[in-house]
């Protein structure tokens, strides 16, 4: 039974979900729009919250993974995002805009992590000990149906993205990976439209300078192995050669 707290600190249990009536009600609730669900959620309706969660959880997870470039702690981020959303429902002006609002919470949490990771890397202990949020995991990003060339291209793009400041990286990912329009980018990134344009423009410039094209793309596997070998060599520089 969901035990979701109401914003005012009390819990209003609508129905027992396992009962027949609960099942019927759940299906009725599932047919409601986001604005109606948010209204119910504000009254402490646990079923409404669960419905909203199940409707938008995949969006939130994918958003976090695609901005970060890996799935590290993404479940924590999404968990925190929904918890914040639950606690601050009253701050949502347009109940119908729950999805972009949730997205902006996810983006803010990911940005905080990226900035923290960058700070850790500034004072980092060694190249092999990069903060987890700064590591690219191409297998988490790319579908298994994608061909090797597409994987190599995405690997190149994401490798270049990792070099960008968090704000620019987020803006570009929202625009070209998540395919939001500029208004959507500015809404999710919580900045003005002009600022969103500037950030995308800077990121695009950087990526164009770094991208070598599909023909010159090295295999991601080969590059990963090379990096791992380099990191291992730097970890243990005095290890005698086996030869």
């Amino acid at each position, binding site marked *: 039974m969901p035990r979701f707290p109401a914003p005012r600190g009390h819990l209003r249990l609508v129905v027992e979900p396992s009962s027949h009536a609960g099942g019927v009600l759940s299906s009725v609730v599932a047919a409601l729009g986001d604005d109606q669900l948010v209204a119910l959620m504000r009254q402490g309706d646990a079923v409404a919250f669960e419905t909203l969660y199940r409707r938008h959880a995949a969006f939130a997870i994918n958003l976090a993974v695609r901005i970060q470039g890996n*799935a590290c702690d993404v479940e924590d981020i999404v968990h925190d995002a929904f918890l914040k959303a639950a606690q601050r429902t009253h701050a949502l002006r347009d109940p119908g805009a729950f999805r972009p609002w949730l997205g902006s919470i996810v983006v803010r949490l990911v940005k905080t992590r990226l900035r923290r990771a960058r700070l850790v890397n500034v004072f980092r202990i060694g190249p092999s000990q990069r903060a987890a949020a700064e590591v690219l995991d191409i297998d988490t990003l*790319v579908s298994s149906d994608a061909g090797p060339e597409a994987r190599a291209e*995405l690997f190149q793009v994401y490798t270049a993205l990792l070099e960008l400041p968090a704000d620019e990286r987020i803006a570009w990912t929202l625009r070209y990976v998540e395919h939001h329009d500029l208004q959507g980018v500015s809404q999710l990134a919580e900045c003005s439209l002009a600022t969103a344009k500037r950030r995308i*423009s800077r990121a695009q410039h950087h990526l164009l300078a770094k991208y070598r094209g599909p023909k010159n793309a090295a295999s991601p596997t080969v590059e990963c192995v090379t990096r791992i070998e380099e990191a291992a060599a730097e970890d243990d520089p005095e290890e005698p050669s086996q030869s």
Partner: protein
Amino acid sequence: MKSQLPRIDRSLLKNAGAQAAVERIWQRLENDAPLARYSRGPRVWSIALASATFATGLWLGVHLNKQEIPSAQVVAEPASRLWPVSGAVKESAPVAPGDRPAGTRGAKRAAAFGVSKTSRSLPLGREQMEVPEPSTGPTASASATSLGASPEWMRLANLGDYVSALRAVEEEGGFDQLLATATADRLMAAVDVARATGQKGRALQALRKVLGEFSGSPEAPLAAWTLGNMLEQAGDPVGAAAAFAQYQRLSPQGDFAEDAVVRQLEALITKGQADEARRLAKSYEAEFPESLRLRELSEQLQQPRAPTPGAASGAPVEPGPGSVGGQVAPAAAVPVEAAAR
């Protein structure tokens, strides 16, 4: 030639929001929800942590940025007061015994920044007094502005509070100083502030500066696009066409590349340059064969249209762009041409 970035199709991306992950998070949410009820009030430990973080940041800032201090002195004090007349100083400033000699690090730094170390000891010897004229106030503050942290007006502009940003710009020396010293990124933010507060002339000035002096910067394509929009709105199709063409050159795969060609075409049609418009339409058709605008544009091209009087004679556009006899007037052309280099 630069490679075109691949289009990242959603079908290429894995769906990370699998049912198992969704269920795991939901389990946690169910378990954590009761705890969240008790964690909403002000928390003493978080305040203590924030204070400790602030203190650490302050300490790090002070210790890591010691070398920045001399430039701050240059900004704060007028040059005339920092640098006494050399003759008078030569007579009245004997090197005190035990004072730091001329070749030491502090004295070299003082000489490099053109300031005395402090006013109390007059430690500078003859060698430092003969350093060429110190930098003037505006130049010194210019370097400090461009190298310093993000100013308040920029922060406000990023938040979209342009009226407050304009006020902050005025407090920090005004637009003229900003235009003279800002980087491309800040100039573009200044453009946003100027446009949002109705100062189109300032916005055009800033855009031209970006295209003229920062043509290789990431901001240049956006500057060309914005300039085209503004000139078009101001009734200068010639200047607008040149700016849109500039955008295409700077960012052939940019977000607005297709739109830029269309806008350029429309501008050419407006000013009655049908031959040039047809030539451009052909290359547009080849480059964007699936464009929804093709039919509409070809219809426009088939309709004979007299040149717009304003376009042919050079509509005056504040504060100076325009066209003369179908050619881009120097005021508008120079920055655009310069940007092409």
